[in-house]
C-alpha cells in the first residue's frame, strides 16, 4: 500500500484573531459553546460505547469538526431543513435532536429516535427539520434540492442546508445537484466539510483542483467561498450570510469549510495514513479550546464555561443510561414499516 504518510503535510492556517471582535452577540456565543460541548461529549461517549461493543455496526465521528455543525446550527431557523451524511451525529444534535433517543439509535435500541431502524448513519428528526442522514455519497444533494423546491413553492421561507465531504465533490450527483439548484434559484446552502481526506486517501491526490468545492463554484455561477471550519464564529457568520440571502430569494450558495477529523474515518480506523506532523498541527487548532479561550477573552467567567461543561456531561450520562435501558428490537419489527400500511409486503 502507498505510504501516504510520506506525503507533505497539509497544515492549518492560524486562527483569525479578528473573529473575536466580530459582531456576534455574547449570548449567542455561549450557546454555540454549549453546542460544541454537546457534540464533542456526545461523540466521545459514543466512541467509548463502541469500544465496549455496545454500538453495533459502524459509526463515523466528526470529532474535531464540530465547529461547522455548531456554527450552522446557531444560524438556522427552527423550521429550516438539514440534510447530512453518515457523519451526521453532530448535525442532528445541532438541530436539537434529543441526546437520549439519539444515543439509543446508535445502540440500535427500540427507544432510539428511529426505533432502532436507522442507526448511526441515518439519524433523522423531521420535527426538528433534520431531514435525514444519507450514507450514499452525493445522493442527498439531489434530495436536498427537492426539499428546497418544496419550500420555495410553498413560500415558507425555509432554507435547506446540505452537508457533505470533500470526497463527495467528485461524484456526479454533486454536479447534477449544483446545476439544478442554480437553474431553479433554490433556497439551498451546500456545505462541503473539507477534512482533507476521502476515507483514507488525501483529497488532493484524487481531485483536479486544489479546493474541491470552492474551485467548482464558478461552474455553477456561484461565488467561491472558503471558511475556517474550525472557527465557530467564522462559520456562524458565513452561514448567516448564505442562509439570509437564500431566504430572501437570492438563490443557492456553496461553502467550503476547511476542517480536520481528529480520529479515523469510521469505527476503529486508527488513521495511520496521516503524517504525524499534520495530526499534531491540527490538534493545536482544535475548535473547542480555542473557543474557550476566546470567550474568556471576551470576559466570560471560567466558572460559567465549566458549568456548561458539567451540565452537558450530566446530559450525556443521562442519555447513556436512557439508551442502555432500551430494548433490543424484536424480530417482528423487521417486517414492519416497509410500506405505508405498516407491512413489509402486501396482503397476499
Amino acid at each position, binding site marked *: 500500500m502507498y505510504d501516504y504518510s510520506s506525503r507533505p503535510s497539509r497544515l492549518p492556517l492560524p486562527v483569525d484573531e479578528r473573529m473575536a471582535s466580530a459582531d456576534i452577540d455574547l449570548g449567542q456565543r455561549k450557546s454555540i459553546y454549549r453546542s460544541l460541548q454537546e457534540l464533542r461529549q456526545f461523540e466521545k461517549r459514543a466512541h467509548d460505547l463502541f469500544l465496549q461493543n455496545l454500538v453495533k455496526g459502524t459509526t463515523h465521528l466528526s470529532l474535531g469538526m464540530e465547529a461547522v455543525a455548531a456554527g450552522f446550527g446557531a444560524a438556522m431557523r427552527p423550521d429550516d431543513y438539514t440534510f447530512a451524511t453518515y457523519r451526521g451525529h453532530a448535525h442532528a444534535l445541532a438541530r436539537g435532536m434529543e441526546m437520549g433517543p439519539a444515543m439509543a439509535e446508535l445502540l440500535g435500541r427500540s427507544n432510539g429516535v428511529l426505533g432502532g431502524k436507522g442507526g448511526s448513519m441515518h439519524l433523522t428528526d423531521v420535527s426538528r427539520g433534520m431531514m435525514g442522514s444519507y450514507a450514499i455519497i452525493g445522493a442527498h444533494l439531489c434530495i436536498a434540492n427537492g426539499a428546497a423546491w418544496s419550500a420555495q413553492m410553498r413560500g415558507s421561507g425555509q432554507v435547506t442546508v446540505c452537508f457533505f465531504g470533500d470526497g463527495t465533490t467528485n461524484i456526479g*450527483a454533486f454536479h*447534477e445537484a449544483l446545476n439544478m439548484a442554480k437553474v431553479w434559484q433554490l433556497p439551498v446552502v451546500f456545505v462541503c466539510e473539507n477534512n482533507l481526506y476521502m476515507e483514507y486517501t488525501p483529497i488532493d491526490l484524487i481531485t483536479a483542483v486544489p479546493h474541491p468545492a470552492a474551485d467548482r463554484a464558478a461552474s455553477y455561477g456561484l461565488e467561491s467561498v472558503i471558511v475556517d471550519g474550525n472557527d465557530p464564529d467564522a462559520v456562524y457568520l458565513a452561514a448567516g450570510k448564505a442562509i439570509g440571502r437564500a431566504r430572501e430569494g437570492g438563490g443557492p450558495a456553496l461553502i467550503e469549510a476547511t476542517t480536520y477529523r481528529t480520529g479515523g474515518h469510521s469505527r476503529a480506523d486508527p488513521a495511520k495514513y496521516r503524517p504525524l506532523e499534520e495530526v499534531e498541527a491540527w490538534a493545536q487548532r482544535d475548535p473547542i479550546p480555542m473557543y474557550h479561550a476566546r470567550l474568556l477573552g471576551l470576559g466570560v467567567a471560567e466558572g460559567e464555561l465549566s458549568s456548561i461543561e458539567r451540565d452537558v456531561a450530566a446530559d450525556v450520562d443521562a442519555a447513556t443510561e436512557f439508551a442502555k435501558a432500551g430494548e433490543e428490537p424484536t424480530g417482528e419489527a423487521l417486517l414492519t414499516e416497509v410500506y405505508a400500511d405498516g407491512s413489509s409486503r402486501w396482503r397476499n
Partner: protein
Amino acid sequence: MSVVTLAQALNGGLDLALEKDPNVVLLGEDIGRTGGVFRITDGLREKYGEDRVFDTPVAESGIVGAALGMAIAGLKPVAEIQFLGFSYPAYDQIINHVARMRNRSAHRFTVPMVIRIPFGGGIGAAEHHSESTESIYAHVPGLKVVVPSTPADAKGLLLAAIEDPDPVLLLEPIRLYRAVKEEVDEGDYTTPIGPIRVERSGDDITLFSWGAMMKETRAAAAVLEDDGVSVEVIDIRTLSPLDRDGIAASVEKTGRAVIIHEAPLTAGFGGEIAAVLAERALYSLKAPVRRVTGWDTVFPLKRSESHYLPGVDRIVHAARDILEG
C-alpha cells in the same frame, strides 16, 4: 365517457391530478415546453404553469432525487424518465433512497411520489429505448410497480399511484401508447394497486401477461378460442405488491398456465409467477407451467425486433403443447 388512446388517458389523468391537488408537480426532461418524448404531458405546462410542470436538465439522479426531496417535504411529485434504459443513472436514488426512506426512518417519512417510465420495444431504437427490466424494480421492497395495458387502467392506476403514500413506478408500454383505444371515464377514479385483472374468463388454460405483451396475449387467446379452447387471460398489472391469491386462484380452476413477457427469460418476472404456482397451485396443475419470453440477449435493432419479441405463434404453440400434454 370518451374513446381515447392510452397516451391520452395518461394525459387526462395527469391533468385531473394537477387540477384537484395543488401539491402535485410534474418534472422531467422536455416534459414542460415540449410535452415529453411521447407527448404524455402535452399542454399541461400551459395550463398549470412552469412551477407545476417543469423541464429539468438531463440528470436522472438529480430528477429522482429532487422528486424524493419534494415528497418528503410535502409535495406529490410525478417524475418522468424518458425510457427505462435511462433510469439506471437514477438507480441509486430509487433503490437506496426512494424505496427505503420510510423503513429507515421508521415511518417518520412518507414518500408519495410517482416515477413514470415508458418501457418495452416497439419503436425500433434498440437497447436503452426498448428494454423491459421491470423485474429489477419489482425485486425491491418499498417500491410498488404497476404496468397498465389499457387506457382505462392507465388512468386509474396513475391516479391511484399519485394518491398512494408509497413510491410507485408506473411503467408505460410504449407499443400500446397509441395502439389501443377504448372508452374511458372522464371523471376522477382510481384502479386499485395490487389486484390482477381477469380480462377474459375461461376454464382450460390461463395466459398471464402485462404491459405491451397483453396485445399478443389477447390475439393468442382469440386463436385458441377458435380452436374451441376456453382461455382465461389475466393482466397482472401490478408486479409489486403481487396478487398471489389471484394468480393461484385462476390456475386452481384452469390447471394450466402460460406466462408471457417481453423481458429475457432468466430471472424475468415470469419466474416469480411460476414460483407462486408451484407454491400454491401445484396439485391443481395438469401440465408443466410454460414461459414465453424474450430471448436471453440484448434488445436488438429494428430489423431484428420481430425475431426478439415473442409473437402470437409462440404463445399459441406453448399453449397447445400443454393442452395436448
